[in-house]
């Protein structure tokens, strides 16, 4: 048993923000009660959360753990350790591994490895199409039985409107969300950053915002056609967000996520350094403003990291040649506190929602602090200063644009299934 004492519990599901103690018993929360009122059971471990926030366990809807197949960039073990440091208790792993997670045996392999790693929960996302090649529909039902929580051909969109329609139809019958990496690949071909004054000045090939929003439009129309649950991954453009807002107003079962790097940085921050290269690329100033508004007004459902490790041998090359992607787990909370809460744009409650109940709703699950709920909690500080030293990250990769940045607040303890998997001393 684990008794968390003296913390400030913030629970978006019940809109609770109070000084409460939480008693965990194995897999479940046993009791939540006023501070000091829960008697410490014999032999219970006590965690003093004075001055800290106690929140439901953070969920990351979008991560690349690179195993199987690209273990020199990340493994499930190193990736989940990095996730635990960031305060995440569950991460959804994208299927673009080698081989692609397009069948139940790969799904089971991932779950077995996650269990062996013994850190945070890994919820695999299955490929929508076989090999994510955009031809045949993957064995989605078998993967669901094995444990996937959603489908996606992430890294690219589902190749054709026809296939996307069929996958959405099928997933509606299976009650699985379809996560789309919405991108018109012909508009994005050859591009390495967002098109704009900065790309033009730097002589780097840009993709227009429309490379994303054209495909978002397609996917939303298909969500309406099929009635499927559609989740737009790493939404970066104002035009895309406006369309999601429109779709929600029509009552479509549509959701979207935004990454910390997109709500923090813009195209003007790009240097000739591949740690600023990701897809979708850093967007324009006005896109960031729109994302911040969407995070505040509820149009955006979740903060997701798109944690995308690439080992230095792959990433430390010319900007044009480097693969897309940056690390995300360890800096997400610090950036959210800095950009959203400390800036006065969002309440702490809303920020916690974006890491917890928001992503949970996308997956169709509950997430709250109450007796009988899973014993997954994220305990964090809103004021402890710390500096991100990417060289000390448990991740196998170093491709973060935030190395050396100092944050105010971050994860202090990450509790998964009643067990502390990460704790700052």
């Amino acid at each position: 048993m684990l008794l968390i004492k003296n913390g400030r519990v913030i629970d978006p599901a019940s809109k609770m923000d109070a000084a409460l103690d939480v008693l965990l018993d194995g897999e479940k929360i046993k009791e939540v009660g006023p501070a000091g009122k829960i008697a410490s059971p014999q032999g219970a471990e006590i965690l003093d959360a004075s001055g800290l926030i106690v929140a439901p366990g953070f969920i990351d809807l979008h991560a690349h753990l690179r195993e199987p197949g690209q273990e020199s960039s990340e493994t499930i073990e190193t990736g989940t350790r990095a996730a635990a440091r960031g305060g995440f208790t569950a991460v959804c792993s994208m299927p673009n591994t080698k081989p692609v997670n397009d069948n139940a045996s790969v799904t089971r392999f991932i779950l077995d490895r996650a269990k062996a790693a013994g850190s945070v929960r890994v919820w695999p996302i299955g490929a929508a199409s076989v090999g994510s090649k955009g031809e045949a529909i993957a064995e989605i039902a078998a993967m669901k039985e094995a444990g996937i929580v959603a489908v996606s051909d992430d890294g690219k969109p589902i190749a054709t409107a026809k296939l996307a329609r069929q996958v959405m139809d099928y997933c509606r019958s299976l009650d699985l969300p379809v996560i789309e990496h919405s991108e018109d690949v012909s508009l994005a071909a050859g591009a390495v950053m967002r098109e704009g004054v900065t790309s033009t000045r730097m002589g780097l090939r840009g993709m227009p915002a429309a490379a994303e929003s054209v495909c978002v439009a397609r996917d939303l129309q298909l969500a309406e056609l099929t009635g499927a649950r559609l989740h737009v991954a790493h939404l970066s453009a104002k035009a895309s967000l406006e369309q999601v807002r429109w779709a929600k107003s029509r009552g479509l079962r549509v959701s979207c996520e935004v990454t910390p790097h997109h709500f923090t940085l813009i195209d003007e921050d790009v240097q000739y350094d591949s740690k600023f290269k990701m897809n979708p690329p850093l967007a324009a100033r006005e896109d960031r403003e729109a994302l911040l508004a969407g995070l505040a007004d509820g149009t955006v459902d979740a903060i997701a990291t798109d944690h995308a490790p690439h080992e230095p041998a792959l990433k430390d090359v010319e900007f044009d040649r480097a693969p897309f992607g940056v690390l995300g787990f360890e800096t997400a909370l610090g950036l959210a506190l800095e950009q959203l809460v400390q800036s006065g744009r969002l309440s702490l409650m809303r920020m916690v929602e974006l890491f917890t109940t928001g992503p949970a709703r996308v997956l169709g699950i509950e997430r709250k602090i109450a007796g009988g709920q899973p014993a997954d909690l994220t305990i964090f500080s809103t004021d402890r200063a710390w500096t991100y030293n990417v060289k000390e990250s448990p991740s196998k990769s170093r491709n973060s644009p935030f190395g050396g940045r100092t944050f105010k607040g971050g994860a202090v303890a990450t509790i998964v299934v009643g067990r502390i998997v990460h704790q700052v001393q």
Partner: protein
Amino acid sequence: MSIKFRDLLALEPLTADELSFLLDQSKPFQEIQKHPLKKLATLRGKTVALAFFETSTRTRISFGAAASRLGADTMNLQAEASSLKKGETLLDTVFNLNAMKPDCLVMRHAASGATDYVARHLDIPVVNAGDGTHEHPSQGLLDALTIRDRLGTIKNLNVTILGDILHSRVARSNIHLLGKFGCKFTLCGPAMWVPRELERIAPGTSIRCVYRIEEALDGADVIMMLRVQTERLDDPPLSANDYVLLYQLNAVRLRRASPNAIVLHPGPMNRGIEITPEVADGPQSCVLEQVTNGVAVRMTILYLLIGGATESGTHPALEVKSKESTNASD
């Protein structure tokens, strides 16, 4: 006045004073090109590594000639002869080259920013001989030198650039150099090659994009042509006939420019596509002067980056002259 430069990666970050200094230092090297004996001993014992990861003829030869006329030796690396195709990273290739202890690296690469990236990892001076579609600083300098020779100034001129500006490193270097001297730019070409974003790449410089060549040429003092490639790797091809119809510089169109207007082209030219032979070979064309000035400018760059100012403070090209005259009086 003497200014120190660690690298020469781009003209954008340089001030008007630094650019003027580079141009002024080139003057004596321009004179050297007219001498029967062009070789100096300024950089004797020094080695210049020429690493061209993208094919080039004139820039590579021009830097080679500049090094040799300063008395330096050169090491040559060309992409096709390198180990890049064997999977070696750019950084490893450059580190290997650096291990042979050159005093300076002159580098061309197809990726924008590749020279910045390499320079961050090297302790020797790096000269950008063209990086992707970013900058081509020595071309910008030699163009400015050519304009100053012909028109007497590089200040407050109306400069028109014609062609595929989006993909032109030459255009960017010229805008960043001449813009600091009050030149106003008119960019003209097919709209997909002349995006409006170009008007804001150099804050403080007047840049406008127009799509009719007649409008672009009205009152121009300098007309810069760019090599036109109607077929590009990632884009749908453009009709060459349409290009000729809309944007070819011919003698009739040239009359719209100011009477003393000059025509520059960084080469290689597509005669009959972007420019007619009568204009290319006409009195207003400066194409070959640009090439000659290229050697002088590149001597300046190598001299300043490797040699620095001489102890006496005298320009090396002038030092030779004074020695020659001393010898004569002996």
